[in-house]
């Protein structure tokens, strides 16, 4: 909520952060997308690895938020494909608590950062903004 002045006031489509959320927990994706949109982040939902890849093919994104544990595909695999498709895309990972090993693998594979679930929304927003800034610099 602390980041709301930063994101919430952004009305113009040009400066809005384009975020791709991927998680097979649909209810989570829904509510997270709602809250992030309210904070000025242009969130697009996808509920599986394949869907996310298809979406990324059609559209450009600044940041992707990946759940590492999904049914159809390993999050790390999706991450690698994302990075291949768009090397400038910054990827944040959401992991269950205690799966830091997997998160580390992700960072080695080129992810920007990771979060543990459940996480504070403010922290998530903060990291999304950071990732976005890093992409801009790139």
């Amino acid at each position, binding site marked *: 909520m602390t980041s709301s002045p930063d994101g919430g006031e952004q009305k113009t489509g040009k400066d809005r952060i384009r975020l791709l959320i991927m998680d097979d927990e649909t209810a989570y994706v829904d509510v997270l997308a*709602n809250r992030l949109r309210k904070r000025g982040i242009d969130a697009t939902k996808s509920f599986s690895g394949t869907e996310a890849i298809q979406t990324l093919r059609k559209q450009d994104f600044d940041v992707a938020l990946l759940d590492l544990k999904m049914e159809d595909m390993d999050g790390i695999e999706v991450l690698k494909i994302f990075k291949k498709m768009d090397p400038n895309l910054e990827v944040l990972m959401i992991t269950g*608590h205690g799966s830091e090993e997997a998160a580390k693998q992700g960072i080695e594979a080129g992810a920007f950062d990771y979060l543990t679930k459940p996480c504070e929304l403010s922290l998530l927003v903060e990291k999304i903004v950071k990732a976005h800034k890093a992409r801009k610099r790139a």
Partner: protein
Amino acid sequence: MKPHSDPETYYRHLSRLMITTVIIVSLIPMLLVGGVIYYQFHVSYKEKVYDHLGELIRKHKQNIDAFLKEKLADIRFLASTCGIEELNRKAVLEERLDGLREEYGTIFEDLGVVNAQGRQVAYAGPFKLDDADYGEADWFKKAIGSSHFISDVFMGLRGYPHFIVATRYTVDGSPWLLRATINFTAFNSLVENIRIGRTGFAYILNRDGEFQTEPAFRTKLSREEYAQFFIRKASIPQQDGIHIHEEMGGRGGKSLFVGAFLKDGDWLMVYQQKTSDAFSDLHQAQGMAVLMAFLGALGIVSTATIYTRQMIGRIAQADRDKELMNKQVIETGKLASIGQLAAGIAHEINNPVAIMVEEAGWIEDLLEEEEFKEGKNLDEFQRALRQINTQGRRCKEITHKLLSFARKTDSRAQEVNVNELIQELVDLSSQRSRYSNVTINTRLAPNLPVLKASQTEVQQVLLNLMNNALDAMEKEGGTLDIATRREKEHLLIKMADSGPGIPAANLERIFEPFFTTKSVGKGTGLGLSICYGIVKKMGGEITVESAVGKGTTFDVRIPMEEASA
């Protein structure tokens, strides 16, 4: 271990079995060999003694027989060389007696010539026996009937023991006897000198069982026993006519009797010795052997007993250790499986909790909008949403703790300085301890090696133990002693509080997950099981000692790596 209702009974049984086996296996050959040697030695020694005594008696028998024959031969020689007319003259007889005495000493006491009626017609000797009438004398009757004769010892006319050697010769168809008296003392000395050991002595008996010599000791050879010799002579002809047998005789003890016939079976020479004396050397050796066997057996028995006891003690210890280990393995396995279960649940719960919290946050977001700003229950909505948030966070903490317990947390090994860590934690807790009136004392051993462990894990363990101690002393206050020291390959961290202590029933379950005595909402019951899991993972151990009213001590032992020393 065999399934046994009572381990004590089992070990006793095992111990008895082992002792018995060892004793039997070692004693039986020893006793067998010892017994055979003992018996063989006994038999051969006995044979040797018998041979020796038999030889001795045979020699003496020959001696005495020779003596008697010689005396008889002397008389016969005398009778054959001198005519009866010559001998009838006292002077000649006296001259002959002197000659004999010159030759043999005082063995010949006197000489006499006796006619067919028993009248002594001539006499030479110290007694006044001229014209003595032997017509009714026993010896005369026997002597007149045979060519030569040796009498038994008798008192006769002179009133002291003597015996007679006589030879018969015929002159003009009528028989005459030349007789000589043999000095008893001289004869007696032949037998009297046979003395062996303390109790060995010899004597001569006639057919009526009367002593022909004077025995050195009193003997109670009965007529029946005496008769035995004569019966045996007839039934079992022995070599050289020597009989050896053992019988009860003397005073209670067994005696050895060696018999030999003299004088063509008229006399019996008996050598008598107490068995104990005759075999004293044997008995001594046997006694020694028995004593040694006994001591050996005693040695075997005591050694077997002592060693078996020790061995059983070790077996029992090993069994106990094994059982304890089994218990620990089961305990660890139990904790591990509970941990896995908990981790699964935690993962599953994380998603719904995350959704719930986010949905609540979404409602919060929406409440920001103008249309709700005027709602009269806005405050109440916001309070309820905050509560959902708080409880969601609490769920998150619980799941995080569960996952820590399942050891899925960050476990990168770093160099951890335990003393520094403890100092930090004490500083962190100082506010709280001051508030609870708890004094924290530290006794940290200097120069402890750094641990190769996860800093967060060690910290978690120490913090957990410290918090528990502080919780326990929250009301009453007290002291918390924290000490570190080296203990062989382990680093020992001791945390002793002076709190109310833990009842024994709770102490058993203290490391079980979800076991807590704190009121609902205050503790999850996971703290100590997490500590347990972490310490086990580091290869260490955590133990607790507690007594109600005295306080609780936790010992944490973490292995130190050699290289880091």
